[in-house]
């Protein structure tokens, strides 16, 4: 080969080098740049932040939850209701970063998503602040306030949602914190072993106890061939283990409805044996245990992990909401909502609308649902849950004039002190609200501790008409 030809090879190599540069640069800009530019070490972000009027966050009716105030050329993020929205809205703080809606919708609130080059240039030239988009949440401020009153000084969470749309109406986790005073409180908050920074409703996972029984009841009704009549003696032996009821004397003869009403552990444990692993795993999967809830905010996935299959005792444990079953309060509220909404589970939503500083609607929120069980099955379970409140363990949730359906739960856990649960929906004939109340390590039954809280919240919502 002569050198002339080899020089042509070198031309190819050089051309390839230049094209690689162009290709890599383009690739970087398309696929990596947005992540890189948002890195917290990118000081341009801080400069941009100092010069941005973050969008305002409102409740569904326009009550200001978070706003940025221009205080003598210094922009200050303020939360007028202090602790009330701490877990939902979170905080945006120079030193401690962001949490909640402030973190998840940062790009929207900073206005990164909608700005045009021209608008940006104009603002730069006239020296005006950048403006972020405003967010309207689905929360109802009055209901949120009532929820906080009901759970204050306790540890746990309350969530209320609209069964037919999945819109979150109130969400409170206790203990909470004040996002306005993070500078003073931070070290105390981080060291507090009650984890006040944790949103228990969305990211806390707990054994649901008997409040899970409506799910099992739905599976039993679907199967159709499970023997539901049983004479409860207070305990049952499964695979060598003795499982006993809260009531040691036993519930006597009962059917499925009665088993739910009195929350009979022994009959559910027995029926689970007949139902079998396949159907239990199937109903859990359909109710989205172990998968993403597709909420428009951050959630933890509930779980039921039996990688080596389920033994007879595992089936019994899951049937009464124990074992390796771990549920978030939000998920339990969605289960109540699904039963209330004819078997259709709606994706949870907390963003109602986003609006640009000019008042244009930025994003339309899609409402999506998925049928989990048939409306007949849902209707049967619904009737049983109404009976739970009218004549059973949910007695404390009764409201004169309003039909309430619900289910109590008293969950054993590693702390040794039981969690109190109550899930509910109302009004029974046309459900407008679904609620889950969790009281962590309360030590009392769900019927005694959680049901009255759910009752007060539902009563406030429906009697005052402060739902939507």
């Amino acid at each position, binding site marked *: 080969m002569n050198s002339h030809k080899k020089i042509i090879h070198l031309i190819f190599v050089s051309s390839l080098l230049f094209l690689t540069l162009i290709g890599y640069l383009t690739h970087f*800009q398309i696929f990596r740049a947005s992540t890189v530019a948002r890195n917290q*070490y990118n*000081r341009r972000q801080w400069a941009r932040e100092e010069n941005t009027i973050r969008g305002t966050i409102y409740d569904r009716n326009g009550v200001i939850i978070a706003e940025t105030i221009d205080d003598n050329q210094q922009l200050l993020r303020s939360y007028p209701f202090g602790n009330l929205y701490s877990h939902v809205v979170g905080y945006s703080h120079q030193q401690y970063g962001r949490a909640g809606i402030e973190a998840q919708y940062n790009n929207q609130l900073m206005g990164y998503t909608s700005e045009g080059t021209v608008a940006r240039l104009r603002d730069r030239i006239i020296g005006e602040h950048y403006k972020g988009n405003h967010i309207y949440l689905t929360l109802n401020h009055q209901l949120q306030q009532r929820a906080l009153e009901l759970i204050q000084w306790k540890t746990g969470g309350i969530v209320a949602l609209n069964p037919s749309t999945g819109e979150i109406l109130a969400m409170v986790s206790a203990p909470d914190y004040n996002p306005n005073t993070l500078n003073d409180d931070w070290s105390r908050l981080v060291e507090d072993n009650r984890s006040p920074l944790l949103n228990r409703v969305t990211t806390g996972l707990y054994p649901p106890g008997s409040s899970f029984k409506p799910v099992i009841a739905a599976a039993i009704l679907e199967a159709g061939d499970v023997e539901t009549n049983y004479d409860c003696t207070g305990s049952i032996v499964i695979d060598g283990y003795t499982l006993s009821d809260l009531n040691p004397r036993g519930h006597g003869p009962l059917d499925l409805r009665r088993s739910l009403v009195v929350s009979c552990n022994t009959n559910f444990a027995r029926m689970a044996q007949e139902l079998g692993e396949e159907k239990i795993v199937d109903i859990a999967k359909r109710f989205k245990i172990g998968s993403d809830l597709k909420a428009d905010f951050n959630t933890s996935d509930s779980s039921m992990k039996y990688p080596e299959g389920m033994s007879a005792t595992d089936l019994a444990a899951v049937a009464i909401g124990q074992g390796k079953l771990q549920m978030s309060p939000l998920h339990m509220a969605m289960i109540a909502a699904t039963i209330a909404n004819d078997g259709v589970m709606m994706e949870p939503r907390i963003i109602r609308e986003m609006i640009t500083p000019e008042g244009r609607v930025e994003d339309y929120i899609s409402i999506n649902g998925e049928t989990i069980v048939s409306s007949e099955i849902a209707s049967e379970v619904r009737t049983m849950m109404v009976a739970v409140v009218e004549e059973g363990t949910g007695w404390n949730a009764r409201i004169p004039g309003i039909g309430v359906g619900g289910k109590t739960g008293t969950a054993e856990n590693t702390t040794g002190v039981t969690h109190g649960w109550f899930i509910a929906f109302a009004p029974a004939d046309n459900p407008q609200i679904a609620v889950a109340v969790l009281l962590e390590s309360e030590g009392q039954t769900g019927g005694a501790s959680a049901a009255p809280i759910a009752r007060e919240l539902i009563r406030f919502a429906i009697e005052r008409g402060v739902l939507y």
Partner: protein
Amino acid sequence: MKLGRLFVKRPINIIITVNLLLFSLLYLFHGVADYSVPLAGGLLTLIMVICYYIILKLSMGDQYIFLIISLLSSIGIAMLYRLNPEYGFRQITWYGLGMVFYFLSYGIFLWIKGWDRYLYLYIIAGIGLFLFTFFFGTTIKGATNWIRIGQSTLQPAEAIKILYIFFIAAYFKYPEKLKKPYVFLGIIYIHILFLVLQRDMGMAMLFFGVFISIFYAYNTEVRLFLINILASIMIGFLSYFAMGHIQVRIETWLNPWRDIAGKGYQITQSLFAIASGGFFGTGLGLGRPDYIPEVHTDFIFSAICEEFGIFGGIAVILLYFILVYRCFKITLNIKETFKKIVALGITLTYAYQTFIIIGGVIKLIPLTGITLPFISYGGSSLVSAFIAFGIMQALSRISIDGEGLDVIE
């Protein structure tokens, strides 16, 4: 149509237009009261127009070499002016001085005959400069490759770059002078060793790249070529394990995000700038390239990407591409071996240098400190680049004139 003809017939108009746009933006950016900006822009444009007409009138060969390097210089000067007016103004001075060297090297290269006879001179001068730097050099930014003369510092490697090309070209013209190819290879690796000892990895890569490419084209023994490739891979591995600073370079290349505040600082700041610029850039004066360390030298390309966008960056890369392509065409037209290799050497040097530094700042390859030809701030590299392309200008004339010259040899 008329506008198109205006640029095609008189391509210098493109440069005048670009300068007008760049310096108008700078003028706005610095505030209307500052008359130094239009003054500087006018001065720069005037130098360019005068030089262009000298090249045309004296029919000095290819006119586009000058046009492209001037366009690149304009972009560099505008960027430097935006970063620090003082640097910008000094760079204009360097550009003027560079053009003087450009014409000088053009003239001297054509005037002196028999450049191919001074093989030993090139070797002695090159190694001598290295030794001088080694004993009297100053360490700047971790590399001992500077010589201080009074107030100013200069980088001998920039001069050695040209001597090195001449040495390789002279060797292949009369290989018998060095008896055995191993002697030649030995001298090559001594050059590279010096650069490694000076911790100037970018230059070491560049010297090796230029050598191996020319060796590929002109060495007839395939076995020897393969031995060189193998040896270089082994040396690469050995130096990776033997030298801590090379390991650090590789690690920060693979994952700079692990230590953004420390070792990965430079490259991550560069990537932040490029990412923040987007496709169209923030606009001249509207970004924050001042956050990038070494922004006026090694990282000036990141600043260009931030303010002119990826499209601006790609335009700069394409300008280098056209320049390199034209130089390759000139190379192919030359028949005489020595001149052909000199042309090839200069072409490859600047092609690879561009690749090494742009590739480094965009994290395509490990980052090594080396300047971006014609754009980075710095006298040594700018003047040596003008000398090299002055020679290229002379070679272009030779290639256009046909090969009357090799009869003289």
